[in-house]
């Protein structure tokens, strides 16, 4: 059986368009050092380091963990590098957790990052290959038709996405680490923003950020003695399915549904909207909030948009199940780190350390990440109690 593990330290950089003052190592190091400081630990206290990031082509360094070992105090220790597309930050946290949950390690450091300003994500993601039609205008071009199909099926009002875009930016304005700081954003401003990939507007899309996120995960014995309240890992799950196959349900992917069911079962959750206090969910385009509300079982199929429109997911409106109080991916998106930020922010909520974006009394939180063509899913549930 798996050993109990907990997050005992969290460190993040301030997310921004371009961190001009640090090297790649310096960026990663900053988050890692902050996580250690938060855990009141030194480099020698760490048994292994688990690194995650999205494609190496973003920074043009092949398997960069090889160069990052010194910055992460990893010499003489095991190091593992995870890559599962956009879900990688979440998957990396899960692989790190498995080091402890297996009983093999007492305390590990995990870091995920992206220094997107070193290149251009649009280039890296749509770099043409010979013999292929080159019409895939970035991730938005891929997801826009899927969103359109969701709108058709659900009959959601046209401004659902606009509402999410405003809500997550208002949340982000309460999180000093969030990249976009738009405290005065409103529905009209989002609606009037440039339509990039119909139905996705500019302000309904995530930014491109530099940033890193790190966590220290420890065994029960060590977490009991931790410097600050631990976030106990109550459930972990990952699922994958192929990008394209005949009859694939792209709007409400089976892999996401199965992954959620698995993680809820482990955490003893039967009604996620009621049982969870807060969720940090990977929403890179605003419409993915209602879609994932359904996929993750917070609302019946076709009704996710109702929660959004009622304000149920808004911290500021006093909603019963705030989604992305940190501002989410819509406010900060260092791709390789974005999933880990969701996982870390879920942990911060149950540790009660979120300040202005704290969900009052949060005891149980979901961290979620997805990647590829919405085909790779990683999730965890963390709690203030061991369970």
């Amino acid at each position: 059986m798996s050993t109990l593990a907990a997050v005992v330290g969290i460190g993040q950089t301030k997310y921004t368009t371009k961190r001009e003052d640090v090297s790649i190592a310096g960026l990663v190091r900053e988050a890692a050092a902050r996580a250690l400081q938060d855990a009141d630990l030194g480099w020698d206290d760490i048994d292994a380091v688990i690194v995650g990031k999205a494609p190496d082509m973003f920074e043009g360094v092949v398997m960069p963990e090889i160069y990052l070992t010194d910055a992460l105090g990893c010499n003489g220790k095991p190091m593992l590098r995870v890559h599962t597309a956009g879900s990688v930050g979440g998957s990396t946290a899960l692989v790190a957790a498995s080091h402890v949950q297996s009983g093999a390690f007492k305390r590990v450091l995990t870091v995920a990052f992206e220094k997107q300003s070193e290149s251009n994500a649009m280039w890296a993601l749509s770099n043409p290959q010979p013999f292929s039609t080159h019409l895939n205008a970035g991730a938005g071009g891929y997801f826009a038709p899927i969103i359109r199909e969701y709108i058709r099926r659900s009959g959601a009002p046209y401004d659902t996405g606009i509402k999410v875009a405003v809500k997550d930016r208002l949340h982000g304005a309460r999180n000093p680490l969030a990249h976009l700081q738009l405290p005065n954003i409103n529905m009209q401003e989002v609606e009037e923003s440039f339509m990039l990939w119909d139905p996705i507007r500019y302000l309904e899309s995530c930014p491109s950020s530099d940033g890193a996120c790190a966590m220290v995960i420890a065994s029960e014995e060590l977490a009991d003695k931790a410097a600050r309240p631990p976030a106990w890992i109550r459930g972990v799950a990952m699922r994958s399915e192929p990008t394209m196959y005949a009859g694939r349900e792209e709007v409400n992917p089976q892999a996401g549904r199965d992954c959620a069911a698995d993680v809820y079962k482990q955490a003893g959750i039967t009604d996620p909207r009621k049982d969870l206090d807060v969720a940090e969910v990977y929403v890179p385009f605003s419409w993915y909030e209602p879609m994932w509300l359904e996929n993750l079982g917070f609302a019946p199929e076709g009704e996710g948009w109702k929660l959004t429109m009622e304000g149920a997911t808004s911290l500021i409106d006093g909603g019963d199940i705030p989604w992305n109080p940190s501002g989410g991916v819509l406010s900060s998106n260092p791709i390789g780190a974005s999933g880990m930020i969701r996982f870390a922010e879920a942990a911060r909520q149950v540790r009660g350390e979120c300040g202005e974006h704290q969900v009052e009394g949060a005891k149980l939180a979901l961290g979620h990440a997805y990647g590829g063509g919405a085909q790779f899913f990683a999730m965890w549930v963390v709690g203030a109690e061991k369970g």
Partner: protein
Amino acid sequence: MGQSNMKEIAIVAYQQSDCVSDAGAANEVELIIPVLGKVFEQVGITNAQDVDFVCSGSCDYLQGAAFAFVMGVDALGAVPPIKESHVEMDAAWALYESMLKIRMGHAESALIYGFGKSSPGELPNVLSQQLDPYYLAPLWVDTISLAAMQARLMLDQGLITERDMAEVVARSRRNAQGNPHAQLGGDVSAEDVLAQQTYVSPLRKADICPVSDGASAVVIATVEKAREWGVPYAVISGIDHCIETHNLGVRDLTDSISTRRAAANAGVGDGRVDVAELYAPFSHQEIILSRALELGEDTRVNPSGGVLAGNLMMASGLSRIGEVFNRIVAGEAQRGVAHATSGPCLQHNLVTVLEKGETA
């Protein structure tokens, strides 16, 4: 990590494609599918639905396209969805991740595969971009040249001779004659090798592993599950890995400290080592590794020919584990050691100890 107080985990199947210098039209999925088909057949299962976890290893830069591993999922039969993950490393590390999954009780079995099509690019150049991005990558110092400097350090210090290196090559070529998947096999003598002119001095072309395309796959399971399947198995009695500084100037390149440390943690010295499969892309590195693992005269080193006879980047480390498994289940060895490496000049090393399981 050792096996004490842990669920015993065993290798139950191993397959690899032929190492070929250019797989031609076959894309990655087309390279993987036949290997997976054979490994499933070896266990008596249908597809990835019949194992609890899948983990792969690959590197986007080998073929120059982001998300190489995403296509790999197409080979698995992952409908309904499966528990699956990927490391941007040699698949030996995917095996390591899979073992953690089994130990935490979330799986009883796992499929691990690695694949690479290195022929489309200029591999030594591609790998130069693993180096420090400010000081070394812009110089395009290729990996062969770095290994050549490592070899010269050893030659200069009298730790090896060119004949020692040539003998490693000759043994690899001879052993590879018995390996149907090898790319370079033949009755080659050390004299033949020494007669070649140097390529990147002091290395000769024969001292350097070839560039190969292909894939390999392993299935692991708890011993209980292996018995349920009724297949021969080899128990993983220890596994550990360890990385060293990225600054080549700081490292003692004539030794492999990280291999020594991983070997100690994996318990290599706790028993006789009948066979060892070492991921040594250059002849002198096999000598470094044999010494770091403290292998004696009674250990057969690289009976498959090793990677000097064919190097499936991102799969060769996993293949080393598979090759030791093959020797054990064939009854040729009771206990063996497999080694995997990553990074320039043996920067990151993984050591696995396999032992013959009790007869079911």
